[in-house]
């Protein structure tokens, strides 16, 4: 299916940009007239994915975070969040609820669990030393449906 609209944004992986990134995606999704709840779900999932790029992907260096979002005619939104950081050695383990490789900073290990429960689909592709791409998908319901 061809997207009816698309956007890309990239920014330095500074934690202050976590708020910028989720707000930018929310502003793009707004054209589908989502409910407050749908918008909160999407913002939360994007915040989790972007935070992971900054906290884990680029552990102790500054790197660039890339986001792209596509809107499809069936009111589906697909968001890709990507870093060129350290990558995830064991994706299955990383996605287990409560697993975190950084407990010292009070990470709850629930980022992927949150993404999975708020989105329709979450896909993770990663290569050690190359980086990670998280794809989030969510259908926005037609109001009054």
């Amino acid at each position, binding site marked *: 299916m061809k997207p009816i609209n698309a956007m890309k944004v990239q920014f330095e992986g500074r934690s202050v940009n976590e708020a910028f990134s989720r707000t930018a995606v929310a502003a793009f999704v707004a054209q589908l007239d989502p409910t407050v709840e749908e918008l909160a779900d999407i913002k939360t999932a994007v915040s989790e994915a972007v935070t992971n790029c900054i906290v884990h992907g680029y552990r102790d260096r500054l790197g660039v975070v890339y986001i792209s979002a596509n809107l499809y005619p069936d009111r589906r939104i697909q968001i890709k969040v990507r870093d060129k950081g350290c990558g995830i050695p064991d994706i299955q383990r990383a996605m287990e609820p409560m697993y975190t490789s950084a407990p010292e900073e009070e*990470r*709850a290990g629930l980022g992927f*669990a949150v993404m999975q429960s708020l989105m329709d689909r979450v896909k993770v592709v990663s290569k050690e030393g190359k980086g990670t791409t998280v794809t989030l998908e969510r259908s926005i319901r037609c109001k009054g449906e």
Partner: protein
Amino acid sequence: MSVQIEIAEEYCIARLIGEIDHHNAKELREAIDNAVMTGQVQELDLDFREVSFMDSSGIGLVMGRYKLMQELGGSLHLVNIAGHLKKVMMLAGLDRLAILDKPEQRRRKVLSAEPASEEEMAETRSVEEELEEIPLEIGGEEA
């Protein structure tokens, strides 16, 4: 993001304001823990009324304060959790810790630093009276 902290004896209420994410969780954590340690707090309430956004960094913040209060032999309660925040907290299983949504009347009144007027004193006493009455209501005879 900011936090307003009020302490009265060993009770502390921290009112969180704004968005809770990884970027500002550390600052909140330090402010709250500092108040708890210096005030020798035994009962900590985190008020989420003015929180407009929270991701799993907020769960980390709550879990960390839960552990801290346990270590100190005290207690933690979360108040004014609604909508999106409730959803994120439920999916993290925070409801299982029995710290969510402390009933309004159970909250202790925070005494202001200024000497209370007589009216306020009277009000304080009536809150205490309410507290006394709570056990009677549990499994009460009301239809």
